[in-house]
């Protein structure tokens, strides 16, 4: 596997409202890496900071939000220091994004050709015939039948699955090294979803693009991703290889998420996580998960755990892992 292409270190993105009197720490000190050609799953429930993380990377945060600390290194350069003008040269060329709702990301007034051609026009400097050929090629690569005819269509003439494939073609148009896909299949039907996921895998194999897959669906992670990062209340609570995390989850939240998903053909009662996800403006003390955690101890409500290494390329943020690891160290030294 290649060197880290994207390296996020201690990223903090806060929303401040009411003139700064109310601060919501949507992303609170997260670190992760994405290697070339790899797929990282970013998993968590709504409001845990997944989308804010992605928007911080591409520099498209809403006005109230600001990156207040940490760095985002993409191909060696720190994106947090870039001006909006410089970011425009990076978005589309190095990083592209696929959003959840294709109708919201496509412009209903422009033809498919115009929209797919735009990134190639600006970033690759393509014009006239070569541009047309490029668009045709892109549409073919996302399996749009008769692309030469279809590129004259408008978004409303296409089905939901096709629109999402068009968005995929736009994302690929600038030849990016990283695609951030924010719940791209939530609005699609199951068979269309399966087709889309297979398509993304094929594209990845052909172009070697790295993908960050934002989702709350662990099934998609199991199918698509090499590594996963589980987020809870603005922090990454566990991060590692998908196989390791599914086999032996360290953090109780990862365990609970895995237990709460219905498995095909199993009638066993689901493991329900009690309570609600916390309000980010008013977080519980200590570990943010402790009020819902089945293994919470006295210490969890008082002190926040640090991220510990619990295997090769595997970290967790839980006092249980701390205890386990320190025991192992003691045993090793003895």
């Amino acid at each position, binding site marked *: 596997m290649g060197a880290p292409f994207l390296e996020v270190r201690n990223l903090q993105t806060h929303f401040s409202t009411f003139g700064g009197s109310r601060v919501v720490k949507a992303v609170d000190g997260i670190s992760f890496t994405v290697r070339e050609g790899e797929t990282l799953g970013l998993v968590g429930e709504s409001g845990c900071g997944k989308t804010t993380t992605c928007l911080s990377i591409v520099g498209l945060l809403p006005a109230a939000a600001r990156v207040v600390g940490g760095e985002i290194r993409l191909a060696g350069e720190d994106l947090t220091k870039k001006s909006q003008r410089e970011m425009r040269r990076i978005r589309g060329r190095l990083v592209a994004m696929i959003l959840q709702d294709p109708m919201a990301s496509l412009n209903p007034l422009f033809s498919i050709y115009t929209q797919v051609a735009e990134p190639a026009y600006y970033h690759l400097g393509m014009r006239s015939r070569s541009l047309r050929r490029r668009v045709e090629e892109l549409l073919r690569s996302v399996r749009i039948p008769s692309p030469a005819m279809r590129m004259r269509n408008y978004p409303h003439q296409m089905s939901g699955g096709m629109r999402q494939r068009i968005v995929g073609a736009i994302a690929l148009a600038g030849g990016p090294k990283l695609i951030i896909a924010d719940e791209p299949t939530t609005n699609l039907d199951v068979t269309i979803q399966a087709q889309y996921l297979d398509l993304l895998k094929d594209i990845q194999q052909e172009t070697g693009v790295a993908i960050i897959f934002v989702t709350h669906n662990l*099934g998609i992670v199991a199918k698509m991703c090499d590594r996963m990062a589980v987020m809870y209340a603005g922090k990454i609570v566990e991060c590692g290889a998908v196989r390791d995390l599914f086999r032996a989850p360290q953090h109780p939240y990862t365990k609970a998420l895995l237990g*709460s998903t*219905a498995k095909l053909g199993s009638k066993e009662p689901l493991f329900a*996580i009690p309570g*609600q*996800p916390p309000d980010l403006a008013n977080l519980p003390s200590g570990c943010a998960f402790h009020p819902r955690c089945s293994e919470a101890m006295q210490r969890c409500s008082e002190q926040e755990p640090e991220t510990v290494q619990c295997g090769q390329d595997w970290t967790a943020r839980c006092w249980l892992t701390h205890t386990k690891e320190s025991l192992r160290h003691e045993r090793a030294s003895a």
Partner: protein
Amino acid sequence: MSAPVLEVQDLQKHFPVGTGSVLRRKTGWVKAVESVNFTIEAGQTLGLIGESGCGKTTTAKLILLQERPTAGTIKFEGEDIGGLRGEALMRYRRAVQVVFQDPFGSLSPRMRVGDIIAEPLEIHSDLTRAQLQERVAEVLELVGMSPDVAKLFPHEFSGGQRQRIAIARALATDTRLIVLDEPVSALDVSIRAQNINQLEHLQDTLGVSYLFIGHDLATVAHISQRIAVMYLGHLVEIADSAELCAHPLHPYTQALLIAALPAHPDVKQERLAIIGEIPSALAPPSGCRFHTRCPHAMPRCSTEVPVSKEVAPGHAVACHLY
């Protein structure tokens, strides 16, 4: 076994499509539901699964009498609901209730939770104010909420809690069948499990029947005893939940199973053999509706509509392969 709670026979619903001009000419029909047959036994759950536009929700509306069928009958506890009038109709509406997908749209933001739950009771019973309050407290406790929440407004609750309030409202009258139209699709994963467990617990304690509509096979298979698969208005396969997951017969059911996401990264994944998208219901394919996407299509499939055959006890499939 006692008589089924609900018996649906040869149900059809066609919607006219107009030109939209002043003349309002009819230019065609959307056959939303064609040939649907199933039964729901007392205290059991039937899962109805299919992709958007396959007629799941129209079927639910027909059962709830929000739409009248073009043809076919729906029998509730042995009685044809098409002929119900007056008091008998009110009795039916009391016994059959619904929970919708979006708990933000289905609860009035201007009413207190207690009033929301009491509304069906005010219509269907002549309880006094005190008795109403008592019943509201009772059903709130059934869904695991404190009776004190009756004084609050819906915006003070999360999606999962709102869905519980909707379930409490559905239970308030002496409900024997609840139509659950994608009740957990809008919820977060951790909350989804809470609500599914809650629904299963309510069925065990109250013996209420469910028609559970969904598109996620794993969830539907978890809660249902039997599953019916729909495709473009046709019921293509119906079987016991375990049987359907272990031996899917119809190529569409097989495709749904392949498309279902794996529970573990080590699960071997087949590639989906079906291609293309769901055809428009305005111009459905001839013969078997699925033949345009089916990997096993034969010449016969495009001309002849397959009839549902029982291939094993309790397992019926509509496909020329069997």
